[in-house]
């Protein structure tokens, strides 16, 4: 029944708006791996005039007034997470240079054609079965019932491609913010896996005082010791764009064909950077002509790099300052700021 379905959607939205969903990293990892996580959501009710004092006086009969709270067990799966993300979109601006193959079913209007080989084969079969071959020998005598058609053909379909580079700061100052960073990253990964798995390449990088490309699994390991330098991270991105060497745990260095595909770079950090002022922004400036968007997410109030990012004043840059609490509402707001559809 559609009203029930719509109402369920409204209820889910309300849970999200009221931030009732208390998901942690393990929950999101399970969900990203295709599992369903069951959470207790408090039953919502609008206030009513009720009897009793707040600290233990007995309420009335119930019936909507003074009702005790109970929880609903609510299953969260990928579909639910994706429904929270429906405003996050990637744009594909580079020209179509890639093609995939699809099968197209042919009908008479769009080019149904006779398949000569199969037609001859079916004619021969008929002649053998009816005894015509024994009588007259092989003779090409195609009747209407013999005709076979090509019903399927390959169709090249152009598609647009992108590479999404996800960079996270794993310096010691990020330790108290690890949970939020993990959850943000998982939200991105779920979205990219579900909506853009065919045409977006995911690329992961970690940095403390130096940067390294890692696998998706290693992206969630513990923080490194040492200082914090953003410069090496952005230099690594430039290396990927230019096809030069950089540090990678994957066993190879990638080259991003920025002329043919869109490039998204997201940096998750607390904003505390030890590089000299101006050095990192210079590196970013050299990167900007080749990429589609740089998304800078600063968590908490300690860092100052956000001001430098704002100073770049480019339409290709989106930034957000997220509160450090790892709540759904914070994550949702931050990612909507960075990935929300502005059109």
């Amino acid at each position, binding site marked *: 029944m559609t009203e*029930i379905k*719509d*109402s*369920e959607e409204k209820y889910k939205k309300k849970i999200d708006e009221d931030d009732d969903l208390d998901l942690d990293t393990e929950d999101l990892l399970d969900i990203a791996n295709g599992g369903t996580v069951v959470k207790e959501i408090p039953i*919502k009710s609008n*206030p009513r005039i009720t009897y009793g004092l*707040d600290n233990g*006086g007995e309420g009335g009969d119930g019936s909507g007034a*003074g009702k005790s709270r109970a929880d609903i*067990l609510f299953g969260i799966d990928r579909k639910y997470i994706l429904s929270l993300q429906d405003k996050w979109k990637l744009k594909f601006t580079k020209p179509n240079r890639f093609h995939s193959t699809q099968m197209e079913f042919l009908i008479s209007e769009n080019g149904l054609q006779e398949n000569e080989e199969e037609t001859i084969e079916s004619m021969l079969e008929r002649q053998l079965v009816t005894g015509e071959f024994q009588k007259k020998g092989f003779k090409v005598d195609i009747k209407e019932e013999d005709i076979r058609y090509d019903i399927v053909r390959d169709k090249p379909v152009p598609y647009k491609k992108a590479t999404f580079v996800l960079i996270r700061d794993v310096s010691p100052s990020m330790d108290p913010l690890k949970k939020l960073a993990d959850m943000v990253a998982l939200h991105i990964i779920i979205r990219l896996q579900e909506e853009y798995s065919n045409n977006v390449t995911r690329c992961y990088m970690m940095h403390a005082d130096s940067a390294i490309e890692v696998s998706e699994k290693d992206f969630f390991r513990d923080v490194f010791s040492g200082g914090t330098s953003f410069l090496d991270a952005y230099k690594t991105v430039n290396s990927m764009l230019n096809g030069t060497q950089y540090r990678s745990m994957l066993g190879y260095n990638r080259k991003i064909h920025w002329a043919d595909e869109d490039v998204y770079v997201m940096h998750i950090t607390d904003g505390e950077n030890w590089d000299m002022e101006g050095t990192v922004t210079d590196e970013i400036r050299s990167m900007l002509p080749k990429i589609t968007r740089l998304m800078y997410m600063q968590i908490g109030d300690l860092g100052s790099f956000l001001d430098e990012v704002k100073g770049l004043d480019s339409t290709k840059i989106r930034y957000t300052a997220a509160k450090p609490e790892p709540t759904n509402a914070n994550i949702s707001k931050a990612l909507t700021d960075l990935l929300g559809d502005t059109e």
Partner: protein
Amino acid sequence: MKIIVREGVNENRNWTAKAKEIADYVVNELHLSFGNVEFRLVNTDELAQGRALYLAPLPTWYLGQTYIEAKEKMGARYESLYEMVGHKYKNTLENEEYTVVYLNKADTEAEIKSVIAHVYGHMHMNYNNYLCKKENGDLIKHAIYRERYSELERIISEDGKTDGKKKLEGIFDLAQTLETLIDLYPETRSEIDNTVKNYYKTTNNLPEETVYDVYKFILDNAQFNPWEKEVYSMMYDLAQLYRMMRTKIMHEGFASFVEKKYALYGEKNQVVATEMQLGVDQVANPYEKTQLPYALGIKLFESIEERGNKGRFGLRYSILSEEKKREFDDKSGKGLEKILDALRFSDDIGFISAYADDIFLKDYIDILKKRFPEDYAPKTKEEFDYMEWVSELTPRILKLELLIGREAALPSLEIPKGGARYVGPLGVGLLLEQNLSFLKRYIDSGELSKEETDNLWGHFTLLNHSTADSLNRLVKIWGRPVYIKTVDNLGLPCLIGGDGNKIKFFPIKTVATGISMFG
């Protein structure tokens, strides 16, 4: 009377035969009477949908929550609702009206039969009790409201900028706060001849007389735009179902009574009968507060039946000692007659007042005491509170608790004469007064001692966060300050008022209202 059981569009002949067998018993042996019934065997999800749509007819987040909660509980067989008495519909082929009842296909034979017998009890109440006849939910109307609500969402969103769903949800949330502010007993109010009054109107009081239906008054007098008023009106109409609270104990008690009777004397299959009896005992659990209507109700009907069969009514009986009363038996055999009479004319308060005599209450207290053995040491606060409560129970106290509990099922608020233009400390606004006149009856008659009365104020005060939140919403709806006159936990009258920015508390002696606490 026609009985049919359908599964999908087809008749389930096996179950139709069984349902008819049960109907034969309740009609011939228990003298019940009701109209045509169509049972529909549905799966758990469909039953959850049906329940949710009945409790939350409008397509809002509340419907979504109700559905998910019902599905989860039914799926886990936890607090399972086995049936849902639904709506009346007209079978146009036969030109007859049927009441549709949903049954869960996943239930066992004993459970389904229990439900059918239980439903017949409910239906007898609906057809014969003077209050219940007017109170049934009309699911055809619910469907119309649902459609209209969705249409309003679309219309409001037509400008492309307004989020119609959000707008309507805001009104729905406010209206839910108003829901319990209806008049539960409109039949007790005297009709006022407004034509004469309006002609000779000499004052500008608003309202002219005390108004007991606060929601209706706000609906008629607050400033709404047309679509807001439409939504509030729908919600007001739907809120009338709260009046079913007036006969909750009778409804569930009688339905359970019928179910038990069939299980004991009607069902031929002993295994099924035993399972049915166990089911009734489980539902009518006297130790679960939520099951009080079932537990108390069924016991009271059994008591009425026994008393009626043994002639234990009337003056001749009432002057006997307790010992003689327990022995009295004139074999008059009028048990069922007494029950059917009680059902026709009572609400829960009248029912308890008339039929819960001292002997019944003593026996019920003995049942309550049997929850734990005598030397049991309580392990939780709930157990401790229960044992303390039961140890102090007497028939008088139990009866008072039951009666006051029913009378005060919802806070009763009214708008006094001129209350819409009340000059309060936060400005001119709407005054709502809590009506505690029912308590006055008990105090004046001496049934409640001063100490007992003093202990009650904490239960009846409206000074809590939920009321404060509600007050903020009332201010939003009314557009001006709103005040609620209540009592504090010492029983002293006081006022709380809100103006949209703050909620303030005023002891009554600082506010000259000239209005007595008891109306």
